[in-house]
């Protein structure tokens, strides 16, 4: 029995450009506009169609109770508009949404915080703004203060807080929100890395408690790890809706985001079978650091980490690189004679392939990976679109581009040895 907790049916939202987002109206403008339109009627006709955009266009999906759904898409794809409509901040132009649970939205942390008020006063104000009850807040008060780690400053106006303390307090309140449906937008984009991890950890806890979560983020590792299902929005429509790895894979292939590392902490769900399981795969730079964008002159490493679970197999890690258009640039498998024909014993292996610098063309590259057995050939796993990275263009004498500034076509851009002989008499 999996009835939907959220039903979104044919939601569209139209914005009029230039009116809603730019200058504020004044009565004078309006009067002037009215006069103008009288005169313009004969000459121009209406210009209504041109300056409206559909931020969302006929979006439908359903969410079952307890599902954790990632919503991804480029800037302007309609993610924020969708969240604003779901949070009832703005109304749709057409369509209908049914919500079968209380919604808590976290479109930012610290909504309604007032600098003049003390931490204590702000906890109550902010909590009530986000839909908590006063009693609930009084009960959780000590917990919130402890989570934020600011007990000495609880009666100090928050304008005297460091920005770190401020964000901690704001997130502490938000983290104690307990609606059945939680809507989270880019909150994790604020704060330092440590704080972001704390947020992600809290998100995971919330997800495991059986609450329904809609999570909008550009952080692909977080989306993949938190959300079994992902919805991809493109120009206001649902472009893909399905398993996280499929949708994110598609999104990476279309150049929507970079993802330089994938990791499977739980071996039972890691790609593979009883023979071998892939535990992580990353794009690394020459210093062996995970890196989503690499200088065209530098070598690029593709690093596999995998567990062999059955000894005696001959295994070959293989990957391919595809350009943004989807064309495969090359396939490569491990041909190192030390390993190629050697039966392996059980245990963890780390294999790295190095793509030379000055070889791939600039742009987004998508990695698909397999680990196969040879003689007979058998694919133990195949992860399509598992990673993506960007090759950064450079000019200069040590590049194939040299100082040529124009478009440089091709999937590869090798720096070739060129030879010329002057032979006037031939």
């Amino acid at each position: 029995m999996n009835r939907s907790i959220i039903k979104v049916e044919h939601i569209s939202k139209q914005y009029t450009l230039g009116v809603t987002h730019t200058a504020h109206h004044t009565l004078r403008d309006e009067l002037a506009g009215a006069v103008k339109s009288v005169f313009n009627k004969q000459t121009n006709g209406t210009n209504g169609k041109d300056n409206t955009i559909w931020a969302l266009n006929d979006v439908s999906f359903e969410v079952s109770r307890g599902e954790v759904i990632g919503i991804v898409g480029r800037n302007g794809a309609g993610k924020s508009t969708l969240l604003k409509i779901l949070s009832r901040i703005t109304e749709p132009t057409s369509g209908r949404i049914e919500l079968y649970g209380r919604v808590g939205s976290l479109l930012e942390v610290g909504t309604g915080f007032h600098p003049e008020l003390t931490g204590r006063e702000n906890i109550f104000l902010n909590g009530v703004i986000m839909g908590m009850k006063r009693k609930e807040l009084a009960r959780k008060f000590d917990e919130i203060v402890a989570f934020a780690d600011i007990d000495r400053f609880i009666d100090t106006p928050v304008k005297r807080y460091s920005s770190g303390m401020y964000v901690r307090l704001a997130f502490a309140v938000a983290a104690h929100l307990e609606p059945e449906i939680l809507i989270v937008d880019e909150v994790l984009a604020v704060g330092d890395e440590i704080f972001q991890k704390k947020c992600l950890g809290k998100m995971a806890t919330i997800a495991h408690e059986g609450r329904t979560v809609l999570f909008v983020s550009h952080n692909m590792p977080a989306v993949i790890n938190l959300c079994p299902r992902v919805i991809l929005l493109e120009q206001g429509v649902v472009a893909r809706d399905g398993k996280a790895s499929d949708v994110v894979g598609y999104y990476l292939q279309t150049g929507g985001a970079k993802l330089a590392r994938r990791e499977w902490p739980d071996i039972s769900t890691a790609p593979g079978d009883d023979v071998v399981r892939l535990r992580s795969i990353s794009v690394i730079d020459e210093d062996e650091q995970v890196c989503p964008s690499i200088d065209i002159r530098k070598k690029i490493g593709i690093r596999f980490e995998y567990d062999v679970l059955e000894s005696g197999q001959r295994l070959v890690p293989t990957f391919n690189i595809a350009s943004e258009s989807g064309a495969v640039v090359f396939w490569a498998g491990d041909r190192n004679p030390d390993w190629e024909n050697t039966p392996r014993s059980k245990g963890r292996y780390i294999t790295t392939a190095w793509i030379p610098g000055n070889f791939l063309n600039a742009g987004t590259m998508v990695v698909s990976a397999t680990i196969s057995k040879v003689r007979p050939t058998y694919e133990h796993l195949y992860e399509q679109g598992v990673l993506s990275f960007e090759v950064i263009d450079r000019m200069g004498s040590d590049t194939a581009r040299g100082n040529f500034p124009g478009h440089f076509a091709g999937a590869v851009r090798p720096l070739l040895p060129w030879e010329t002989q002057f032979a006037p008499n031939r």
Partner: protein
Amino acid sequence: MSTPVSDDASLIPNSTKTTPTDLPRYELPDEPLVTIQPGKSWSAVDLREVWRYRELLYFLTLRDIQVRYKQTLLGVSWVLLQPLLTTFVFTIFLGVLIRVPSEGTPYVLFVYVGLLPWTFFSAAILSGSNSLVSNSQLINKVYFPRLLIPVSAVAARLFDFAVAFSVLIFLMVYYRVALTWPILLLPVLVALMTLLALGVSMVTSALNVKYRDVGVLIPVLLQLWMYASPVVYPTSLVPARWQSIYRLNPLVGLIGSFRAVVLGAPIDWSALAWSVGVIAVLLVYAAFVFRRMEARFADVV
């Protein structure tokens, strides 16, 4: 050049492993709790929804009061100083120099009884009109009935009124004003004035979101409104042939009655009845206008 994203994932417990067993399962209701669809163009503000959010109303009002007094040097004493200073000025110019009639009461008392409700009324409309614009941050980030914003702005001014009222008590004791039964009407009059300020604020605050010059216009109109109301002079000063037009102003009934019940003078019931009628019509109108514009606040503000 780029931040390593290496161990992001390691801190996240694997989402597929655990199953929710420790939390009581939330049972889905048969009917949706909330249905979101484009608003009907003509419907009134949903008062049940406002009631459901009464705690937020309380905290927003509390915030308005706290914030206003926290950063001022004199704090609450401003609420006393403002009407006292204006009373002083009017007493010198109108009471002593021009000798505006004050129906037998000392002019200081007479003008303070008028300025007290007026100061509340104009301050309520001023903060009410700007309330939606100054809370745009909230409107853009979280849902709640938008009506709470102007209501809390107006309600916060009731606190100032209560503080300034203490001066009136002092003056009444000083001038040995005899209390009469009609003084029990005072809370009703304050409530009516609050509703009038709210009705005006609902319309002006919504307009102010779209047309920012409304915010500039309001103080000017308020200035005019004060002189069109019996604040610093008695209603009887207005010539008889202008009285019928003058009485269209709902404040004539409200401030006139306020003064009458405090000073034990006869109440002008017909003017008061007119005020009640105006307030009722205005509130109904404001409820529809506000609802109609509410849907677009987040898109425009």
